[in-house]
């Protein structure tokens, strides 16, 4: 088995597995610039051309991807959606209501209680075949 057999078109273009055609072309251009700067790089322009062609083929024939090692195998493992100061969460617009909401919360609680009681009563009493006069 030679190194050529292990060539991975995505890795050669510096792209994660599954990149689209546009990303592949951008990766190709970036890798070419790198080759110009670094003549001793482990890949050649022929490798880059091969990789771009391979990715284009994989896009039209995804079943061929069975032969391509996937890095990452699970993009979700590295695509951090963690929010923080440098990746702030969207801002809700400022509220236009006042903050005196206790009365509304009490109404919601009473309604929630009423709904929950009725649900439990209905299920329990129907399950035990109890009651329901005046059908």
């Amino acid at each position, binding site marked *: 088995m030679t190194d050529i057999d292990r060539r991975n078109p995505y*890795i050669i273009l510096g792209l994660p597995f599954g990149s689209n055609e546009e990303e592949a072309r951008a990766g190709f251009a970036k890798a070419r610039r790198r080759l110009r700067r670094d003549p001793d790089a482990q890949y050649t322009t022929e490798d880059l051309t091969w990789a771009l062609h391979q990715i284009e083929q994989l896009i039209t024939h995804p079943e*061929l991807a069975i032969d391509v090692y996937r890095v990452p195998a699970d993009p979700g493992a590295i695509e951090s959606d963690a929010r923080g*100061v440098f990746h702030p969460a969207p801002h809700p617009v400022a509220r236009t209501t006042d903050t005196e909401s206790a009365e*509304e919360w009490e109404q919601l609680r009473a309604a929630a209680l009423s709904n929950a009681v009725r649900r439990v009563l209905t299920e329990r009493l129907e399950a035990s075949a109890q009651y329901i*006069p005046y059908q």
Partner: protein
Amino acid sequence: MVGSAYRFAGLRKRVGVVVRVSPKPMVVFGSGKARTVSNSRLGKAEIVLDLSSVPSELFRLQTVAERSESWASGLAGWLEDQGTESSQLDSQSDRRLYARSAIAAGRVDMAKDSGLSQEEILWLQMHSAMSYGDSDVAVEKALALPPDRFPDKVAVLARALSVGDYSLTGDEADLLDGWPSSMTGVLALRMAAALPIDENRWDVVCQELGLSPEDDETFWLHALAAGESSVEESSEKAARIFESVASGNRPAASGQHSEPVSLEEKAIAARKGYIALLAPNEALDLWRSARRALDDLVDDFQVELTEAESDLPDELVARVNPDSLPQHALESLNHTWEIARRRYERGVEGEWGSTAADFHYAALTALRKGDISRAGDLEDSNGVLEAVVASFEEQQLVGKALDDPTTWSVLVDLIGPEDIPGQSEHAGPWYLSRGIAQLLDWDWSEARDLARESLRNSNDEAVRDEALNLLAFADYQEGNYEPAMVALERALEGDYTAALQANAGIVAEHMDPDRAAYHLGQLATEAPNNDLRLAAVRRAFHIWTSNRQAWEEEEEEDGESFELPGGLIDAIRGLAVQDIELEDFRDMLRLLANFDREWLADESHTSASPHVTSVERRVFVAKASADPADYIEAIASGLKRNSDLEWLAAERDSVVNGLRSLIFKDPENVGPAVYAFTAVDIGLPMDPFDLVVLTGGAVISISRSLASEEQIPAERVVELFEQARSSVGDLSDDERNAAEEIINIAGNSLAMAIAAGHEEQLRQGLQAFERLTSQLNGIPMRRINWTEVTKALRPIHDMASESISELDRAKSYSSATELTQAIDNVAEGFNKLRRYATNPRSFFS
């Protein structure tokens, strides 16, 4: 009958209730008017409500009064006209019926004249109201009754509770205490009464209802009833229940779960500090009915929409899902913070505006570049930014900056990687992300090191699996297949992922075909879609078959059976009944026909396939069957219907070439020739040259076999040979030369078989002749009835004639002088036999 309703004919049909029969029938019509009618008219009327079986006249009237308000009005007038007084009513039941009728007729004042007590009047009013469906009045009357009497009021209250928003006050609840829990409705009322009021009563009711105090549903009801107090909300159980309800799921209690939790319950659970998952219509409902409460939840980041909203007001979307709001809507709402945030995330360079949001994000942009000069403009709600600034000043990550993963890449790039934080849940993903970046930068060694750091710093399975995948790729790139495989197999422990499995197949390909086939077989069985499964099967098959010969050449030479690994077979079987493309189906069945014949031969195994009626299924199931003739017939049938099927033509060519090869390789083995003969005999469509060659080969093999057994070839063999021979002239020059040679050999073989078969027949004919003539020995010639003898020898004569004819035809197939001479010799023998059979006397003379 008094009380029954009749339909009277007339100019228009009217329904009325008979309220009196003597001295003249009186009828109250639906209009409410009472009229007398003649007996004859009543007799002709049609009964529409027959209450004749009801013994009490008053009860009958009450019944019809409660059925119709207009009748009730009419009956009231009639009752008033009667001037009935309690003294005229014979019994308590009559009084009750009279009062109930009066109540039904809307004349409570008359009911009070019935002589019943005030409580009984209330009781009757309660039942009357329920019969009308008026729960409010029914409850009012029920609660006015004495607590310790009239038990059926409990059922009335329970019913009212179940159909309305009614709830009991404490005093009202007390009236239930005297009643047994076995009574209908008591438990329901007790439960409702206990919830908001009394902890002790609640426990009792839970027990009576079979609700365990430990049940999640019980806990949730209790939490709702307790409001802001009395429930332990910090426990693990409370967290689980609140989270479940907030996301719209029932508390995981026993019993039925047909009805989901209500919006109000979701809101209350979210208020406890959990994310409420709201459908857009639910968000809109809260927005309209409890906007301040919704705003509270939004401000605490406790609302998420379950799906993209379509018609919600922009103001609401800007509150609950500002990320989805289009730019123009943000500008219309002057939502400066979200506008600035989006600009910051896009990395737009240039001057910022003058709002507080602009100042903040301009300062944040500067901070990202290591410029802390604008730190005073930052809105720092939780102290993280202060820690970031301090980290820059101290040249190491400090304080809350360590807990915010978004600060790392910024700070490490500026400060240096030697201070990478370790003890954090974010460390593993962070190392992993950087490791992959190194891999994409073609630095396998650095990628491997970072993958190991990620493994050291993470317990998260997804992160660890990805780190192992990264580690494996780095090893794979350097040709270290065994450690790469070990890493991947570790990653595959636990949760399955198709991508890892595919990677394992790729690495295993470099190790041994069985291992690769195992991993790809796993992928083919468990991959999330049929496309990937099919690709895995094809890849596994290719790897396994192309490598097997190189790896196990000796075994191949030994001629041992060629079997696919079990996992791969299972995967192919599964795909064969999936909804896959016909072409893929064909490939799977072709594999099964070659490597899993017994399973495929059972037609029931593939009867669930969408391609159950396809030519493919018929052909490959036949191929898998024990009789190759079935396979040949299936191909012939398919090609006769559609000669353009390339795959089927390829199957046919494979069969023809295979048979031809086998026949000419070993003509003494008659098996292939029999199937070749079958193919020709049933008219398997094929190339004319193939037809001539296959027929010739079959004739050679079959003739040689028959000749050795001294059997005469069947007439069909001769016919097909002659057809083939006559077709030779239609072939191209090159084909004709090759075909003529085969046909010559076949002709000689056939002639030889015919000669051999007839030689044996001649021997038998002579024996039969001798047996017959021996019986004539010792009999004087003149006493023999030669006419009868000649008659007895007739079959021998006919057989000889037929053989002479066939041998004469056989001579035309022979191109060898010696063979022709041999045929002539046999024919001469038959000639002699025929002469003796024709004239037996000459034999004795």
